[in-house]
């Protein structure tokens, strides 16, 4: 009896986790014109149609650019920050850690509204710039945390050894510290990329006319058209995220950093 209960709970959990994903994949293969499950017939036409929609192409490019450059910018700031927090007994280090973690804790909708009301509107920042800054800020906590955790195992005396062998402090960092936290940096990049790419609430506030990230564009599309292409696109994006995480896990044992 107990056995049966255990299996039922497990089964239900898996159903709720994987079920929607399966439904989306199958809904996208529909031959009909409405988003429905079970699909009406089988065809790949919606999967192909996704690539022909102009607004998806431009918003995909924007989301890609935001995810790549926003994450890079976050790493450029986050790696030195993680280094400083790890190596030095800084006054206010705890405060910095809390502030850096804030975007994880504060609901995105609040961040989005705040950025819109107090940055974009009064400062007249362009929509693209605002999105870039917001995505950088959202990814920064992951950059600092993941890089920090890979830096924790790195002994200080390794840098001292490098210095005594002739390195400047900067060379010691690039030649000894960076190569040894490389997998942490890659893990942070991937995590940041996925976070940024899938970001909805903040982008929702900051997206302007003609400048939308892909998830926002998909929402807008669904308000007008209710065809299976949206399911097909969602499935494709899910596969992309899965592929990235899978490759990362294979290459670096990603899961030990997250």
């Amino acid at each position, binding site marked *: 009896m107990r056995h049966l209960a255990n299996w039922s709970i497990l089964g239900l959990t898996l159903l709720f986790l994987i079920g929607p994903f399966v439904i989306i994949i199958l809904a996208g293969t529909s031959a009909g014109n409405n988003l429905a499950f079970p699909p009406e017939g089988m065809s790949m036409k919606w999967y192909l149609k996704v690539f022909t929609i102009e607004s998806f192409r431009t918003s995909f490019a924007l989301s890609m650019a935001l995810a790549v450059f926003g994450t890079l910018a976050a790493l450029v700031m986050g790696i030195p920050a993680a280094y400083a927090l790890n190596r030095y007994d800084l006054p206010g280090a705890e405060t910095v850690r809390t502030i850096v973690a804030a975007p994880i804790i504060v609901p995105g909708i609040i961040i989005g509204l705040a950025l819109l009301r107090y940055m974009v509107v009064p400062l007249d920042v362009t929509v693209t710039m605002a999105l870039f800054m917001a995505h950088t800020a959202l990814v920064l906590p992951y950059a600092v945390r993941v890089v920090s955790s890979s830096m924790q195992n790195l002994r200080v005396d390794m840098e001292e050894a490098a210095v005594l*062998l002739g390195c400047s402090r900067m060379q010691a960092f690039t030649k000894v510290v960076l190569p040894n936290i490389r997998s942490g940096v890659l893990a942070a990049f991937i995590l940041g990329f996925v976070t940024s790419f899938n970001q909805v609430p903040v982008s929702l506030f900051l997206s302007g006319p003609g400048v939308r990230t892909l998830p926002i564009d998909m929402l807008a599309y669904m308000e007008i058209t209710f065809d299976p292409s949206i399911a097909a696109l969602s499935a494709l994006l899910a596969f992309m995220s899965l592929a990235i995480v899978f490759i990362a896990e294979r290459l670096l044992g990603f899961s030990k950093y997250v």
Partner: protein
Amino acid sequence: MSDAFVELKNLTLSYDNSVAVPALDLAINEGELITLLGPSGCGKTTTMRAIAGLLSPTSGIIHIDGRDVTRVPANKRGIGLVFQSYALFPHLNAFENVAFGLRLQKLPDADIRSRTAEGLETVGLAGFDKRRPSEMSGGQQQRLALARSLVMRPKVLLLDEPLSNLDARLRLEMRTELQRVQKETGVTMVFVTHDQAEALALADRIVLMKAGRIEQLGTPAELYSRPRTAFAADFMGFENIFHTSGDTLVSSFGRLPVGYTAPSALLAWRPDAVTVGTGPHTGTITASSFAGGHREYVLQTPLGPLRADAPIAVAQVPIGQQISFDLPHQNARALAE
């Protein structure tokens, strides 16, 4: 200006407003192997880090090879340091670890190759080029760290408790190895340790430190047989140290009249300097252990516990039995307060 190779003058070192080493003076000769010996917190590692340039002195001067290097940054001093943890670079193989410093000097590739190979050879790691530090044993990592410092041809090679992470057998082996390398290369070595046996075995001279000051400086033989203070004597194995008052020994446990007038305020005996089996005093045996050539006893005496070694020829006395003993004054070491 003296002709010492390394000279520390009036060196004061502090951490976070607390002085770790106040006004230290020390002269080290070229090609000498000197050990800084002392318990943890005595300032030996701090002194070593100051010589390396990893710690700026609060005041004082450091001369190396006739040059004032007090304000010279660590990467320009030409000093090698073998860390207690070895501090090898895990992302590089053995060859690249050793070649690291040479590459920074932008030497021609052929020179880097030959000097690195020679360095690995010197420490007995020829053929290990492609191994990562994580694929090497503790002893091999130790040798690699040594080679990495040696190929730079440092003016001074500092070693921070380099043997403390090795097991006993390997420690002995590396001790001999270090001596061999030092004789072969003629490099001036400063060896930091808390292990007096290590210091005695390796050093040309020992600097015994206590609370940031030099307690005694001398050859191993001098320190071993003629410690000047109770601290030095205790470190060198004089386990029985007593105050004196006229012809009486005094400890916190009690008094024992010995029948001769003590020549100094403190007298010390090694366990093997205590006579057991004969003598005017008696004690109770509380511990006894076989130590190969001799037997180690702990006696309960009017002065408290007394450590005494008896030759194996003396018949064994069981624990709890009374035994007679003597603290002969000709075997005692007279110490300053």
